[in-house]
């Protein structure tokens, strides 16, 4: 099997939105999330707090559904969750939200064990007024099998 053409993948897939979801954030679940993480301040743990909001990393928990676009090429190796990142722009509060997910980046790193392919999927989170609250990125890494290696 020949190595994947990363430049062609980038040209075809970066920026492609493949999922949009509308959902409701529940205050009790947000508070439970915060307490389980070890938060102690009322603005994260008490839904009655006038400034109640989720810790920013709550955005990562909202990345559900399809992990990659439909018809995205089969990757030549086992994918593993390499990391997550959040950019927070405004507080995440209970109520209706919308998320839009797109392929944000595709890149490679080469080490002693061969080439690793990184796929970065970004979910952008908005409130019902259209305010962009946060981006949550998931990085999946695939160790590419050397040519000729059995699957």
């Amino acid at each position: 099997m020949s190595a994947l053409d990363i430049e062609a993948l980038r040209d075809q897939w970066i920026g492609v939105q493949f999922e949009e979801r509308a959902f409701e954030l529940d205050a009790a679940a947000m508070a439970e999330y915060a307490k389980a993480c070890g938060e102690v301040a009322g603005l994260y743990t008490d839904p009655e707090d006038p400034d109640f909001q989720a810790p920013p990393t709550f955005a990562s928990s909202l990345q559900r559904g399809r992990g990659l676009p439909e018809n995205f090429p089969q990757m030549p190796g086992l994918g593993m969750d390499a990391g997550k990142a959040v950019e927070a722009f405004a507080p995440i509060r209970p109520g209706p939200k919308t998320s839009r997910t797109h392929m944000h980046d595709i890149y490679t790193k080469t080490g002693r064990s061969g080439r690793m392919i990184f796929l970065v999927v970004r979910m952008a989170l908005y409130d019902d007024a259209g305010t962009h609250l946060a981006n949550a990125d998931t990085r999946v890494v695939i160790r590419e099998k050397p040519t000729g290696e059995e699957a």
Partner: protein
Amino acid sequence: MTVQTVRDVEFGEDLPVFDPDTTLDNVIRFTEAAGWRGPRFTDHEAARKEGLPGALVPGIMSQGFLCAMIHRWAPPARIVEVDTIFRAPVIVDQAYHINGVVTDIDEDAGRVEVDLTVTNDKGETRVFGTAKVDLPTAGT
């Protein structure tokens, strides 16, 4: 002492060590709240059948631990970015320690950067993180 403004922060300062609650009960509580239910997170035997060393603390929970640590250190902190790299599994019911160190300060902008590591009792790093945090520039 907790941090209230950026002027309370020193370059190279160590954050107070935070030992997160990785007990099975707490991980189940987290997965229920986050909607990330799955036997690999909530059942040691089921995880072992998948070839894992035990039930896993979800990566998004480790990410949440990092934020909680920053908020405990600096209650007024507004975390604007947090990036986590999962180097190795974090296993439920095992002890972990989170260390943090201040790596950059912009006093005018009120921005601080912090490196964070989740290590086990053997001192092995399981998760590495970086965060950018905004703090008030002066006391109110």
